[in-house]
């Protein structure tokens, strides 16, 4: 049904064959159009198989074992770390910490670096478009140490320009500037390198939430020059249960450990403990071993497809969706113009609730997300409770965008008020 031509470099038809779930039919027996990629991506067979193979052939706990299986698992786990390091262009594997996800990674920074370095009156600067994962840990830190959390707003075009960032940095003199490289609701891609330099010049430490960047662009932590960068495995075609905390080595070295337990120690006595060196210092307990192996397979897959190709294809789809949405009567795109965005488009439809939109689209086989997308402060600022969000990835097609657009233009008809009356007040209620 879905033709898979692409004016970009990708052979999307071939790519789709690698993703078993893309071949299923939706509940309504239409082909599935999966446009919920900003929430989580799907996996190619190679990722699923890499994990199965570990469980079937060479699994054991890592690090402390010297039997053959344990050496094999340890080596695979550490190879995964090396693969992540080169995916991010990190200068050392010591800088790559495996965490449970983006959220866990940000909490690690907040509890370890934050508790150590922030106090009464200090400011943490965020964008209003931050995901809750990059807000709540800072609110919690503020409760603990008495610092403040400040936000940079978006303008009427949903954008944040350099001047807004510069003036916020001047005004608040923040100790930390923590921002998402791309907004998971607005779709905006921010200039990470430039803003990092501006923040450093203002004396701030910089954390980049790359949850919506890692899947889409080539990361280069040495070029970006930030202090912390985090992302999640499940958004880069990897498994759930794993994410990455990258930190500047000298900074990670200076920080106290966060979670305590096996693996992160050098010695433990009845009186206290000493911490292990990096990266183990921040990896307490049995790590997500098989998930790391799955993440490595995902990175290998993405690298094979090519991050530049991925980004170009997404932009193409995103631009088409953006243009199409803007043409539909009653639809308002919540986000800047296409040139500022990747593959994410959020929107509202006059008089129809986002969840009803999502439910209707699901009936057409199109999976989009509805709600606040874990960006309540942004939604509040914009004055809407919920939006619908269509987010594409490199395995989506131009034809899928068109199916989606057709479905959106059918939504209003479905829910248009037709002057219905409850026919009889008690016809059902007393039955």
């Amino acid at each position, binding site marked *: 049904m879905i033709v898979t031509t692409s004016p970009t470099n990708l052979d999307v038809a071939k790519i789709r064959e690698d993703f078993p779930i893309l071949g299923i039919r939706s*509940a*309504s027996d239409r082909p599935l159009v999966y446009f919920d990629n900003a929430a989580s991506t799907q996996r190619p067979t190679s990722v699923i198989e890499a994990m199965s193979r570990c469980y079937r052939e060479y699994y054991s706990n890592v690090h402390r074992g010297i039997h053959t299986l344990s050496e094999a698992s340890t080596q695979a786990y550490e190879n995964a770390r090396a693969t992540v390091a080169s995916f991010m262009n990190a200068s050392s594997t010591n800088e790559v910490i495996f965490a449970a996800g983006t959220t866990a990674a940000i909490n690690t920074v907040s509890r370890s670096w934050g508790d150590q370095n922030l106090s009464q009156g200090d400011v943490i600067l965020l964008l209003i478009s931050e995901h809750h994962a990059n807000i709540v840990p800072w609110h919690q830190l503020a409760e603990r140490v008495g610092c403040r959390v400040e936000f940079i707003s978006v303008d009427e075009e949903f954008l944040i320009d350099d001047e807004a960032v510069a003036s916020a940095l001047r005004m608040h003199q923040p100790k930390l500037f923590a921002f998402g490289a791309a907004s998971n609701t607005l779709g905006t891609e921010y200039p990470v390198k430039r803003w990092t330099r501006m923040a450093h010049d203002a004396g701030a430490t910089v954390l980049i939430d790359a949850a919506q960047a890692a899947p889409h662009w080539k990361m280069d932590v040495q070029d970006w020059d930030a202090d912390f960068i985090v992302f999640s495995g499940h958004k880069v075609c990897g498994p759930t249960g794993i994410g990455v905390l990258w930190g500047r080595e000298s900074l990670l070295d200076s920080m106290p450990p966060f979670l305590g337990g096996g693996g992160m120690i050098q010695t433990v006595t009845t009186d206290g403990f000493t911490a292990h060196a990096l990266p183990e210092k921040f990896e307490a307990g049995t790590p997500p071993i098989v998930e790391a192996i799955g993440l490595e397979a995902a990175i290998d897959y993405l690298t094979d497809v090519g991050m530049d190709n991925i980004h170009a294809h997404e932009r193409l789809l995103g631009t088409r969706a953006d243009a199409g949405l803007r043409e539909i009567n009653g639809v308002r795109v919540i986000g800047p113009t296409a040139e500022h965005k990747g593959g994410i488009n959020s929107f509202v439809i006059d008089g129809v*609730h*986002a*969840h*009803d939109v999502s*439910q*209707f689209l*699901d*009936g*057409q086989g199109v999976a989009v997300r*509805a*709600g*606040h997308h874990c960006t*309540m402060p942004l*939604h509040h600022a914009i004055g809407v*409770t*919920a939006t619908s969000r269509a987010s594409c990835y490199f395995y989506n097609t131009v034809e899928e965008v068109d199916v989606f657009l057709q479905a959106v233009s059918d939504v209003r008809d*479905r*829910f248009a*008020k*037709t*002057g*219905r*009356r*409850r*026919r009889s*007040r008690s016809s*059902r*209620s007393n039955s």
Partner: protein
Amino acid sequence: MPNEQDIYEEHVLDHYEDPYHRGTLDTASHMHEGNNPLCGDRIVITLKLDDSGKVAEAWFEGEGCVISQASASMLIERMEGKTIEEVKAFTAEEMLELFGPKLTPNRQKCCLLSWKILQSALHSPIGEDGDSSAPSGPSLGEEQ
């Protein structure tokens, strides 16, 4: 999986377009507001309990999806005239049944939003409790 066509059946859309007692009751004795953390939608229910312990009048206000609005209308209509005990005895299952079309777990939360808030409203007399409008009712997360 319930189908989109089944959910938005005519009876549901009727209640959505022409809700029963949508608004706020000025003479209310009880009030409660709550939200659905999945979407952020809020509903306020205002009640007047009469001396015999009956729901003399009930109104709802707020914004939300078709399901939350239609189900609130159905609930309010059904509960008026019932005793407090009868309202308390009205279960989540009965609410889902009253609504009609079968719902997936996340949409059940939409359907049960007003039901939860009504249960809390019974315990929220106006005036005695300063923060009766805070979202302090039972959370929908408890449903699962």
